């Protein structure tokens, strides 16, 4: 089964990358852009058929490795979950 982890910087944490992209978009004529934040998206293929258990395991992976909880928030999406 697949799991998707979306990782974003916490709101108050500076996102220099987002700022630079936002500037460039404006320079390229996309004046309507008011804010850009950049995060990661990690796609996991996992040998597990139970969506609930999958979610639980992935949450553990996030806490131990995937996300830096000091500065990042994460959310988990399990496409097969209804």
């Amino acid at each position, binding site marked *: 089964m697949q799991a998707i982890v979306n990782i974003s910087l916490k709101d108050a944490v500076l996102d*220099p*990358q987002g700022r*630079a*992209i936002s500037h*460039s978009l404006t*320079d*390229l004529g996309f004046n309507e852009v008011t804010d850009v934040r*950049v995060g990661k998206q990690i796609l996991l293929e996992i040998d597990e058929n139970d969506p609930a258990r999958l979610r639980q395991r992935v949450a553990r992976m996030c806490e131990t490795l995937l996300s830096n909880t000091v500065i990042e928030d994460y959310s988990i999406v399990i496409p097969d979950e209804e």
Partner: protein
Amino acid sequence: MTLSALRVAIIVFPGSNCDRDMMVAIEQLTSRRPALVWHKEASLDAADLVIIPGGFSFGDYLRCGALAGRSPIMNAVLDHAARGGAVMGICNGFQILTETGMVPGVLIRNAGLKFACRNVGLQVCETLASPFTSGLVTSKRLIIPIAHNEGNYFAEPDELNQLEGNGQIAFRYTDSKAIGPANPNGAAHDIAGVISQNGRVLGMMPHPERAMSDLHGSTDGAYLLLKSLEALAS
């Protein structure tokens, strides 16, 4: 023409940090100080060689070379290349050239996932006619430093075959006395530098401007640059 008649322009982006080093290197070889051109300029004075230097243009944010590739000056550089003008991109300059499609391929994260700064051995390859390689002895092994995070050259297999067939591969990583693997970043086919189909645009990861004298530990960068400049002057 003499070397001192060569007009060399070095493009400066916010975050470029090898612009001065390259200016000093070119001046050492030609006795003429190249022009530094700020990225916000929309046009470029006539130049015999445009150099896009190393560094972290726009902080390498989004993708290295991506934001610089869309800077106003790049339209002028693209026009210059379209007219057959010579362009050389070093390190971040190489990344900018791939981002704008001036040379094929993409530079992705080093296979070791770490910034790598060290000397590498470079093999000069047989290429199609190009001012950047015509003066170099192909059997020669050059020792020149690298310093990058994203130097892992990638292209689809078909494209790689085409590059090989066309003679567009200018330099390959090869053994040197330095400690560590010969290929420092996982680059496909050990590619360290490629040239465009017309031979007028070169992108390479190693920094010749850091191998300009015995005090640097190598003069191979001076040799490489000098031969290119001589070819462009003749």
